[in-house]
């Protein structure tokens, strides 16, 4: 995967989030303050704009730019959390112009660790961690058993969806949803839902990348 493909990922994530912004906000209005869709749309739009403007040439630089944009523009809890996640991921990729599926797995794991370091949420706390953590695990499992990028990202995306669904049964213990205590049970977590969109965007672009190897640069993805 090269910088181009990482940019495609963020473009697709921004598109999906914009398309589902009302849904994310609706989820946040049940357990939070009704702004998650607005925040994520604003943040990812800024990320896209900053990518278009600075045109970073390595995957690491792409993710670092996205992290900086999310931190600078999102606000709320999700901004620093996702922003830190992307920056940590960028850190593992260094300046490589092209990264392997294994490298991407390490980057995703680093994102998870980064988000947990600053947010201190564990699985079961009803946060984005509940979608991201199983996604990272599923991704790694596919790679460990010799699967390719497309399969790994698809597995990650599916795991994120399952994680999201499980958040409905949880009582929030982190973020502003935690103030509602037991009243959060029965509602999906908005941050887990945005994680699903981001992971699904990754699956989309990596399988498209595989299939359409005529794309300039996309052929390098594995």
């Amino acid at each position, binding site marked *: 995967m090269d910088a181009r493909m990482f940019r495609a990922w963020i473009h697709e994530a921004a598109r999906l989030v914009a398309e589902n912004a009302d849904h994310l906000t609706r989820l946040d209005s049940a357990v939070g303050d009704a702004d998650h869709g607005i925040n994520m749309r604003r943040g990812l739009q800024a990320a896209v704009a900053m990518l278009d403007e600075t045109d970073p040439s390595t995957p690491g630089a792409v993710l670092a730019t996205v992290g900086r944009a999310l931190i600078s523009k999102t*606000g709320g809890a999700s*901004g*620093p959390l996702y922003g830190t996640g992307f920056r940590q991921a960028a850190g593992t990729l260094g300046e490589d112009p092209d990264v392997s599926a294994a490298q991407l797995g390490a980057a995703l794991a680093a994102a998870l660790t980064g988000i947990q370091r600053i947010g201190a949420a564990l699985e079961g706390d009803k946060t984005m961690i509940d979608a991201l953590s199983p996604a990272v695990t599923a991704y790694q499992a596919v790679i460990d058993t010799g699967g390719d990028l497309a399969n790994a990202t698809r597995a990650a995306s599916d795991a994120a969806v399952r994680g999201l669904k499980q958040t409905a049964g949880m009582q929030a213990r*982190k973020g*502003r949803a935690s103030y509602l205590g037991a*009243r959060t049970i029965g509602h999906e977590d908005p941050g887990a839902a945005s994680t699903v969109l981001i992971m699904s965007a990754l699956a989309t672009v990596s399988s498209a990348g595989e299939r359409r190897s005529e794309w300039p640069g996309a052929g390098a993805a594995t």
Partner: protein
Amino acid sequence: MKKLINSPDEVLADALVGVAAAHPSLTVNTSERYIVRAGGPTAGKVGLVSGGGSGHEPLHGGFVGYGMLDAACPGEVFTSPVPDQILAATRAVDGGAGVLHIVKNYTGDVLNFQMAAELAADDGLRVEGVVVNDDVAVENSTWTAGRRGTGATVFVEKIVGAAAELGADLGMTAALGQEVNDRSRSFGVALTPCTVPASGKPGFELGEDEIELGVGIHGEPGRARGRLVSAREIVGVALDAIHTDMPLSGEVLVMVNGLGGTPLIELYVVYAAVAEWLAGHGVWITRNLVGNYVTSLEMAGCTITVCRLTPQLTYLWDAPVVTPALRWGR
């Protein structure tokens, strides 16, 4: 959604233009999005910066001025400000004695201020923070993100502001802010929801005789739903919760704060009930505020905040303050 706005996306930008036009004593940096006292930092004084989502006006911009804040960083409605703007404000108010961040305890606010503080430290600025978490409705911090910061923020900003004006150093202001926070508790009640402009829909729905008990200031539902009862009963619930958490005695500062859609006449009805309850428990209100200070857009309801005073806190509360929303002694 019925609002006096030009467009949901421009509410904050337009309001900041209004703030700039209305208050010659303030300078609004509309691109970096912060509000500071006109005339730049005071050399040798600790700079006080607060901020948080918009929609709580006059908090925080209305408390920028002599004897209170040096800068406020307004985020989008109900959304924490971002590190960049906090960093810019921190730089703008540093007078060489360091900068104190006054942060309401919400994950977003705390994380964004933390990042800004780290960036400021990288720049060689001395920054400390006080996290306000006065809301007793959130009971158990191992199961939550911790108590929310609500009404006590005004007390912290006012009292620490006075101390900073009198020359307290960074460590002293941080400790004093912590002390005010530790001696303060709040409880909030909502009669109606409110609507974030960008979302366009009320945050929750309530029946004609329902209220939300233990609400924060972000339009979210409360800890529990209850029946609409008399002001006196609601005050009883709120003060019982506060008193159970922090037994009240001696002299107190009380704020009966409107959430935005409740008329002042009702706040006085509530205040009468608060005064009655406290007198009945041998507690003496020696200072008070009744009005809209920490709002939640157009939500109807109120928060009640009590701070157990000391002679020093009373002295600092009485010290001169000259801001758009609080002004006395000058």
